[in-house]
């Protein structure tokens, strides 16, 4: 057992990777829970693609400079979110179609930019990340993003809950739900940007959504959902890192696949609405009739 976790103590790069993973696991899953509850699970995926051209531009202009790439990612994510919202409001079309259009444009533009200015190795790094190459700058950025996210979530928690539950009530109270949604999407973007260095732009959203969707099978309480999602994300991050080290696997996919296994197991055996619960529920009327027969 000790041998299994020894690399975390023995190697600095593993410790930095672990801390980065745990920090991301603290902040991203609560955002995933809110995305899921708002029926916006796929918006996280779209935003993950939307940050790509900014990251690519940062890379082209400053090389592998994390601040430049992160700033580019944040800007392009916010621009796409703003454009999608703006086009939707102007045309009256649903926001998801505008978002889908813009993220596809972003993805193509991002891949094109990286291909023009870099190599396939660079492209792979941007798309899939490298958690084992987390340096102090990246760690500080991730820690700062996680801290800011948790603080902002705490401050806007009640407003966010109300905006999910009953936006008309908030409007009636003179609060603009668009403002809350804007700040929330901003948090999603900065978390995805923090995650791209370690997990890659395409997989950063995995640590946000998979723990949240898995937790849905275990709790009907908001606090429970968020707590469980964080625990699942932390276990996936730690387990994925160790798996990656011992079996010589890529770290990002290992972490996300572990979170995926947690989701599949939850869907099969979870406490609420899982396959197992549904199978048992089907048997319930038989028990009732048996009780009725016995009492008669």
């Amino acid at each position, binding site marked *: 057992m000790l041998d299994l976790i020894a690399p975390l103590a023995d190697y600095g790069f593993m410790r930095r990777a672990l801390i980065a993973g745990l920090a991301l696991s603290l902040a991203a899953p609560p955002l995933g829970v809110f995305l899921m509850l708002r029926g916006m699970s796929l918006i996280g995926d779209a935003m993950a693609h939307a940050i790509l051209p900014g990251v690519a531009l940062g890379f082209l202009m400053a090389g592998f400079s994390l601040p430049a790439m992160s700033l580019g990612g944040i800007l392009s994510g916010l621009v796409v979110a703003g454009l999608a919202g703006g086009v939707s409001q102007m045309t009256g079309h649903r926001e998801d179609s505008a978002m889908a259009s813009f993220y596809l444009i972003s993805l193509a533009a991002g891949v094109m930019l990286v291909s023009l200015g870099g190599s396939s190795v660079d492209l792979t790094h941007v798309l899939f990340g490298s958690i084992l190459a987390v340096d102090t700058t990246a760690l500080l950025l991730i820690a700062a993003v996680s801290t800011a996210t948790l603080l902002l979530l705490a401050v806007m928690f*009640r407003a966010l809950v109300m905006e999910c539950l*009953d936006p008309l009530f908030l409007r*009636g109270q003179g609060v603009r739900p668009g403002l809350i949604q804007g700040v929330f999407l901003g948090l999603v973007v900065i978390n995805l940007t923090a995650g791209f260095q370690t997990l890659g732009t395409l997989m950063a959203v995995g640590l946000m959504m998979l723990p949240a969707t898995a937790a849905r099978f275990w709790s009907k309480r908001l606090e429970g959902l968020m707590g469980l999602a964080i625990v699942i994300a932390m276990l996936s991050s730690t387990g994925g890192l160790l798996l990656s080290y011992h079996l010589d696997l890529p770290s990002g996919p290992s972490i996300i696949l572990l979170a995926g296994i947690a989701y599949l197991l939850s869907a099969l055996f979870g406490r609420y609405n899982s396959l197992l619960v549904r199978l048992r529920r089907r048997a319930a009327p038989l028990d009732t009739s048996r009780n009725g027969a016995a009492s008669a």
Partner: protein
Amino acid sequence: MSHLRLDNLSLAQGARTVLEGLSGSFPDGAITALIGANGAGKSTLIQGIMDILPPLAGRIDCDVPKERRAWLPQQLALDLSFPMSVEELVMTGSWPTRGALKGYRPSQYRQARDVMQRLGITQLSHRPLGELSGGQRQRALLGRTLMQEAELLLLDEPFANVDSDTVNILIQVLRDMADQGSTIVVVLHDLEHLARLADCVLLLAGGHGQWTTPQEVLERHGVTGLTSQAPFVPLNLSDSSPCST
């Protein structure tokens, strides 16, 4: 002077003018029924009063601050899959005093328990919203409104798809609220509820409004006198001629 006044008000939904030249005052501490055929502009007027729909012309003068206005919309915006219990929903009515940041006070939890007892939903306090019936949900929503201590209450078809026990409780609670000074505007669709609840009527038809009394409406439908035993007949006002105000 009344807390809620309409002055030559016109409201539109998109490019379609729904209400035109509407004037008058809603009496304070009384229940005004909004009646009219589908599409007559009842919900549009309520959206206008809530400042969600800006007037096309004229104005709405409302002295009640926004946080003291409560609205139960017809199209429920409530996300019933959201993981929240009845008690938590009722507690959200503390928003006007606690806002987004301040914690709830013990006195507000006590108030929420009192409200739930009054509405007969104490036993449901920990039940998730998604497991409530239509009537239970309406009671919980009215509980939130009671927590708001609303001075102006706007209800859009509150008795639709609701059982008779719930109707009786809601009518009693609304009557008590009006007696304590709240101004209540309620969209109604049947004579029994009109007879039992309303003090005043604003009849909407053809884009215009006519202020009248429940007695007049009941007489027009062949019911003499106000009685709690008024027949349960849906109002059909599609043949009403436009009224000048």
